[in-house]
């Protein structure tokens, strides 16, 4: 789930700017004023074949690279020597360590979700319901953590809290509080965007009506506005909980040996203790938690969509007035959050400029080396190049597969059997939405050694890491593109057809033309996710072809101020590239919606 955090929740109406794009002009053959041609076939074989292919490609991809590994993983937990055997469960659950990890996971996620909501709702009010100078800049700034790779966030928090850091005196390094703080840091923007997105579309006249009926401002908020926001709050809470419960990179960096989540525990059991059965059992537990959080999230999403369709486009936000108690309190909380978000980021950049011999760019020039006492097998620059190449492959796969999923699932065919097939596919394709990256990586390790009895070891293929990253990024692509496709009025396609556009041209000139921005956004998200992906990659990256996050994690695990400085510099590099890509993608968003 590590990779999933690169999405920003906004709830803009899905209308596209009219200047979006133009179809390429076809070369003009002789004019034919009457378009009607006699005859014609019932759209049959070709169409069925095309849609079969559109559904088949993602089915096969996700079947081989998601369903099969996960099924194998689950089977490992339940079956030993060909028979149902629950002894592994009994054994793993008899360990105190297991219960401690499950408790920690739920506690971390629960507390972090609660704090993110407490801070995020005032933030949503200030940043989406009130107008002030610099609002756009503050909005952009608070979303930066959400798109940062988790390893980078871990390193940034350590640079702040660990020995020598500006907040060393707090003694928070390696504590539960530090992990919770990092999780809140990540997910604050998710709450602000989800809740604020609905809030700005709420019709203020409903609350005004309550006031006119005699409700005090507080009463009006509690009895009118809060219930209206409830679906967005529930949706944000379940997503934040999901992200926190599946946090991997940041927890691994910050938690040390004492704290962890089920995700980090799967990784430790696999790579340190080589206890694959225990890891399988934990993966099953993780799947249950993820499924529960997803079920709550999708329920909340459905009510939110209903609520949204009811709301009128709200008028311009009112200016922020610090004289009013409510505004002042909300603005105060938000200002504090801004400072707290800035701290680790500033600390990361500042400390990356501090070398053992004083201030300078020594850590950055060292990126061309393999680190102190050859900590690495390749230079950081080489790792960065690996990352970019892998991200490119992963993005192509994720956008292709995710785009096809969104296309197929968005259809509403007339025939009952076809409609049933689509809703079945919908359910099947939604399964990996909550995929835990560590589970994918671990599953790949289990299954891709001589898959299906073939004499190939896919584990050594250069495509393995991109494939795993694509599996992690597909849900994000679907979530970005599907709502936009679904928002297209089917009659728009009918209008195009009556104007003479065949099925293919309808697809190109209506569906594709109206989704092109969302697709651009999806490309950006997928690329950023892939660049920062650590959960699956940490299992699968070959030692001679590590990615940037893998290299960073390795560097901070090695002794020596030189390696540590390089880790900081590499983190700054990764953060800049990721943030840059997201910034470009966000510009593409325009008024195009999408769920994230």
């Amino acid at each position: 789930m590590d990779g999933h955090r690169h999405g920003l929740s906004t709830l803009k109406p899905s209308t596209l700017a009219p200047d979006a794009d133009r179809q390429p002009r076809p070369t003009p053959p002789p004019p034919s004023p009457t378009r009607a041609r006699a005859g014609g076939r019932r759209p049959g074989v070709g169409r069925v074949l095309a849609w079969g292919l559109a559904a088949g490609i993602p089915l096969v991809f996700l079947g081989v690279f998601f369903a099969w590994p996960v099924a194998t993983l689950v089977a490992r937990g339940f079956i030993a020597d060909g028979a149902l055997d629950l002894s592994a469960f009994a054994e793993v659950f008899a360990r105190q360590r297991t219960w401690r990890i499950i408790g920690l996971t739920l506690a971390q996620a629960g507390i972090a979700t609660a704090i993110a909501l407490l801070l995020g709702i005032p933030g949503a009010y200030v940043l989406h319901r009130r107008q002030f100078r610099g609002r756009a800049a503050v909005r952009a700034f608070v979303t930066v953590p959400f798109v940062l790779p988790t390893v980078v966030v871990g390193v940034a928090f350590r640079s702040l809290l660990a020995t020598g850091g500006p907040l060393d005196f707090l003694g928070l390094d390696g504590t539960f509080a530090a992990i919770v703080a990092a999780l809140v840091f990540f997910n604050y923007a998710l709450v602000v965007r989800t809740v604020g997105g609905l809030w700005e579309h709420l019709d203020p006249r409903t609350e005004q009506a309550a006031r006119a009926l005699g409700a005090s401002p507080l009463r009006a908020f509690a009895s009118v506005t809060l219930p209206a926001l409830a679906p967005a709050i529930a949706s944000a809470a379940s997503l934040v909980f999901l992200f926190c419960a599946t946090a991997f990179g940041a927890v691994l960096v910050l938690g040390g040996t004492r704290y962890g989540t089920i995700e980090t525990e799967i990784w430790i059991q696999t790579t340190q203790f080589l206890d694959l059965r225990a890891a399988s059992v934990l993966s099953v537990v993780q799947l249950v938690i993820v499924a529960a959080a997803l079920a709550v999230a999708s329920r909340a999403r459905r009510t939110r969509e209903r609520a949204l369709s009811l709301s009128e486009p709200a008028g311009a936000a009112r200016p922020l007035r610090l004289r009013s108690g409510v505004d002042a309190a909300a603005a105060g909380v938000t200002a504090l959050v801004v400072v707290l978000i800035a701290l680790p980021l500033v600390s990361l950049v500042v400390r990356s400029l501090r070398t053992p011999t004083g201030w300078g760019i020594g850590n950055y020039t060292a990126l061309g080396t393999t680190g102190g006492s050859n900590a690495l097998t390749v230079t950081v620059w080489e790792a960065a190049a690996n990352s970019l190449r892998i991200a490119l492959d992963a993005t192509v796969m994720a956008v292709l597969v995710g785009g096809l999923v969104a296309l197929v699932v968005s259809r509403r065919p007339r025939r009952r059997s076809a409609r049933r097939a689509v809703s079945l596919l919908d359910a099947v394709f939604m399964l990996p939405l909550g995929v835990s990256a560590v589970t994918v990586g671990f599953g790949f390790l289990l299954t891709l050694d001589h898959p299906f009895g073939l004499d190939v070891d896919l584990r050594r293929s250069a495509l393995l890491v991109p494939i795993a990253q694509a599996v992690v990024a597909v849900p994000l692509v679907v979530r970005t593109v599907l709502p936009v496709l679904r928002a297209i009025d089917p009659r728009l396609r009918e209008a195009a057809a009556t104007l003479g556009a065949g099925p293919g041209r309808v697809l190109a000139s209506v569906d594709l033309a109206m989704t092109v921005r969302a697709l651009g956004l999806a490309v950006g998200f997928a690329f950023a996710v892939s660049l920062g992906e650590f959960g699956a990659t940490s299992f699968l990256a070959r030692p001679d072809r590590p990615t940037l996050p893998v290299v960073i994690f390795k560097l901070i695990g090695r002794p020596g101020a030189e390696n540590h400085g390089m880790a900081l510099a590499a983190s700054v590099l990764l953060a800049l590239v990721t943030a840059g890509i997201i910034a470009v993608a966000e510009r593409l968003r325009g008024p195009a919606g999408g769920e994230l």
Partner: protein
Amino acid sequence: MDGLMIDALSVRYGDARRGAEVRAVDGVTLEVQRGEVLALLGPSGCGKSSVLRAVAGLEPLAAGSVSWDGADLAGVPVHRRGFGLMFQDGQLFPHRDVAGNVEYGLRMARIPREQRRARVAELLDVVGLAGYGARAVATLSGGERQRVALARALAPRPRLLLLDEPLSALDRALRERLADDVRSALVATGTTALFVTHDHDEAATVGDRVAVMSAGRLLQAAPPAELWRRPASREVAEFLGYQAFVDLDSAQGAAIRGALGGDLPAGVRVAALAEGALVVAGLVVGPVGMSGSGSAEAPVVASGTVLATAFRRGRTELSVRVEGLGRVTAAAAAGAVAAPGDEVALTLDRKAVALL
């Protein structure tokens, strides 16, 4: 035959096997001659839009056939039929500007750019939006959007234009003005059209003929004047806005029969009165006779009690309870004044009476 022929058309929704089937259209036979504008009139949910969608090829036929110039259209996909379709809410492409919308069909027909440009300008002129080509769709008002949608549908010179309640989403004044404009645009371009509406005034304004549908069946198709003069049934008359029905053989009918004059067509038994068919001539004075201004041309035909008065479009309308007819809307003759509770004498406006 020339033009559109709809023969015993049926359209069904839902699943027959599960008993959840709805017969939206049930055996409708209808033709539209080339160059003719046929208005398909009916209450919402009567299946008129389903007829339209079936003709466009957007709904499968459960039974019957749709043909053009004698050639059956079964198996001809939507985009090959050459039928334009205009929706109630326009369905303009939001990612294209006004010109981009209008020229869409021309692109699909692979018309060269110069010709496209000329045709777009011509069409925008026809719908009264000359010079709007570069405007973004989002900046248009509701009426302007419908004009663009009309231009877009007309641009590729469709053999037949299907209009699905194109004016229903607009406010009344605009609707009435646009109905005239649609009519003149269709006539100016010589377009054959099937115009669906639930508004009988609109149907009469736009259509050369009006076809009335109810509950999936076609009740009557006739030119507006004939339709209003001789509705085929009480159901049609009710839908056309006739308010009260008087049996001409009854005691009450006698007065009305007298007012209508002597020569009634054979078989007529019932007079249908539209709103305003009864005109308040004045107050009933005293218990015995009626006064007011009945005359030889317009004798007093009934009396009633005024329930309420209303002022509509600058004229007074009275809601009057008439024994045997119930509550009817009566017009007020010039100078007639009445207040709720008054007994009034009513004369007949022959032009607002239909014979059944």
